[in-house]
């Protein structure tokens, strides 16, 4: 067992922390959450110079050739800064899908994703709101025409490309479409989390044979491992956000004086902070254990990730909710960053499969019939 960060991971951690402290302070996160466009394209350009969008893309396709472990360190830092970005959708899930699919289209797009010139969104959910094969019904045929709706698509306003998972004649099929393909329309939804979410409508959209990622009917084969990695990525992001809530609360408890002494010297507050610590630490090491299982190619990696995603969602939310009690009234105000972390955790917990979905994987793994 070795639970230390590799030197490459340490480097990612240090540079990310320094960059985000300077370029993504809470005031900027707040401004982006309130801004209807809500996405700092210039921030994405800046991080592109650090190589983040292409971290998981091999060097021969213009990326950094980084490991999953490095990406997760970065995600913890993104969570810790509450940084809004299409990193999970574009640089983790879409990237991993494109790498799994291979082919001319994927190989043409990946170097541009790495440079931050293009951003790829994910169009997965439909009316049922569930990320499971049975809930995906939109008919796709390539070559052919595509019509229907995809819901709760993040960052469609800044995406240049979109991966659409639909149902073909032979099973789930993933298409890669440019957002400017005629017939694709994005209608903004209004979310409390600060994420920019859209309804995507496809009206008689042309699907070409070479839009298919992998094979027709092979949508799950190219997307399932990517979605698993996405669930792990969201877990790491939640751990980072919860870590920051813990830090904010401990700092507040040290300096806020009531009744003649810091509130952190009262047991009621001490004990709340202790619970935050327990939840953050247990979530962190469970997520890292899942990351190890994945990288080591363990046969139970899918269960480890489902376990981590379900647990991290619940533990990080507990941290956010309890954090409000420690922080007191100031944490209820819009200008205080606490609510941003709370909402980021909420959003991350729902993305890439909400806890109930992952608990079903766990239920089967522990032998429930």
């Amino acid at each position, binding site marked *: *067992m*070795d*639970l*230390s*960060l*590799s030197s490459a991971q340490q480097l990612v951690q240090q540079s990310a922390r320094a960059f985000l402290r300077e370029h993504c302070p809470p005031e900027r996160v707040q401004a982006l959450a309130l801004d209807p466009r809500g996405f700092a394209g210039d921030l994405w350009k800046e991080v592109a110079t650090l190589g983040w969008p292409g971290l998981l893309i091999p060097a021969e396709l213009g990326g950094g050739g980084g490991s999953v*472990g490095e990406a997760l360190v970065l995600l913890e830092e993104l969570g810790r800064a509450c940084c809004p970005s299409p990193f999970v959708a574009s640089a983790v899930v879409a990237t991993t899908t494109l790498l799994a699919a291979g082919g001319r289209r994927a190989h043409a797009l990946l170097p541009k994703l790495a440079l931050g010139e293009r951003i790829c969104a994910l169009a997965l959910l439909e009316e049922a709101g569930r990320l499971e094969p049975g809930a995906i019904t939109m008919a796709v045929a390539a070559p052919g025409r595509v019509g229907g709706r995809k819901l709760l698509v993040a960052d469609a306003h800044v995406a240049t490309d979109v991966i659409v998972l639909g149902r073909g004649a032979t099973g789930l099929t993933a298409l890669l479409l440019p957002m400017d393909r005629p017939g694709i329309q994005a209608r903004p939804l209004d979310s409390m989390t600060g994420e920019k979410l859209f309804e995507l409508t496809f009206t008689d959209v042309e699907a070409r044979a070479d839009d298919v990622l992998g094979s027709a009917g092979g949508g799950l084969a190219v997307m399932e491992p990517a979605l698993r990695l996405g669930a792990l990525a969201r877990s790491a992001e939640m751990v980072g956000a919860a870590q920051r809530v813990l830090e904010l609360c*401990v700092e507040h*408890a*040290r300096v806020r004086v009531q009744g003649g*002494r*810091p509130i*952190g*010297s*009262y*047991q009621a*507050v*001490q*004990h709340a*902070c*202790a*619970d935050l*610590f*327990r939840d953050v*630490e*247990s*979530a962190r*090491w*469970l997520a*890292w*254990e899942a*990351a*190890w*299982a994945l990288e*080591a190619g363990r046969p139970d990696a899918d269960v*480890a990730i489902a*376990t*981590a995603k*379900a*647990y991290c969602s*619940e*533990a990080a939310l507990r941290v956010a909710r309890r954090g409000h009690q420690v922080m007191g009234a100031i944490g209820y105000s819009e200008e205080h960053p606490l609510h941003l972390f709370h909402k980021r955790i909420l959003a991350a917990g729902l993305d890439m499969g909400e806890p*109930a979905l992952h*608990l*079903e994987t*766990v*239920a089967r*793994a*522990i*032998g*429930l*019939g």
Partner: protein
Amino acid sequence: MDFARSDSEQAFADEVRAFLRAHPPETFAEDGTDAGYGSGAHSHAFTRALGERGWLSLCWPREHGGQAKPMGHLLILLEELAAAGAPFGPVPGCLQVSDSIIRHGSETLQREILPQVARGEATFWQGYSEPDAGSDLLALKTHARLDGDHWVLDGRKIWSSHAGIATHGTVLARTDAASTRQRGLSMLMVDNRLPGMDIRPIRSLTGQVYHYEIFMDSVRVPREWIMGKPGEGFGQLLKGLDTDRFWGRSYKAPFLRRILGSLVEHVNAERPGDPVARRRLAQAATEIAALRALFHRAAWLIERGLPATGEVSAAKLMADELGQRVLSLGMELLGPYGVLRAGSPLARLRGEIEHQYQTSWGHTLAGGTSEIQRTTIAVRGLGLPAEPRPRG
């Protein structure tokens, strides 16, 4: 990061499993209650069998007859034993006391006691709490004075596990009559057979005896049966606290996983497809996995000699509160059958759930209450200011 067992660890885990197959836990005579932490019932016979394998001295230095294995091996041993439901009740106490003898004990103690521990013959109780010194341990009144070649020990200890069926105990006593609070305390080793020792059982709410109260009336303890020098007792206690708390709960996650497995069996047989049971069991499985990860993190810190006080207290806290939740879920899933004891007609799951449910209510009190753990995490782990002590 690498969570994998090393080749030698994996080989050792295989060896432990093979031992358990060859010596099924249920074939060993049990002589004391199962306290529910995961170390199973108290069995001298099983303890001796572990001694024969050299597993009671696994991590001791070679000069004390140990195998000098890294602590990861010990963690694997305890996890595997707990997963199998083996009756190794006295073993954690043996580990803690032998560790303390190796670190602080006189040559006499090391020469006389350690071989008995290694063979599984000596087992121990720990005498910390007193009737008026619980969470405020430093209010203890037990004292010892030097008289020639002996300490003369007087006082009362309470809530000492398995004391009546152990051979020895360690007693925290004031050896400097003029001292107060943490100064002037020493740890003495006592033999249960010494004149003046009166060890009385306390029947617990489970209906069984786990704890004892110890009355010490002018007990004459050999002078060299002191750990370290007089006055070092509290420092030793504090230094050993993290590891004691760690080892005392290190097998709780595999134990809870075993309990969860039997609840899954029950639900599959009695209420298949029940969506609420399904959801709650899956949720418990994620929490047990998180608990285990937290212990592995703490182990990694301890093995490297890094500060781990907050992590260990968090792990103990989570272990015991999660244990209560899992066993409460068990009682709920068994419904009206849950209250039937082992051996009763109609008892489900061998009557194990009701017993472990009852024991779980002691766990958040023993070894430092959950309140003490939370305060420890906050003050020593997170650096929050300590609550001011009232004067006087």
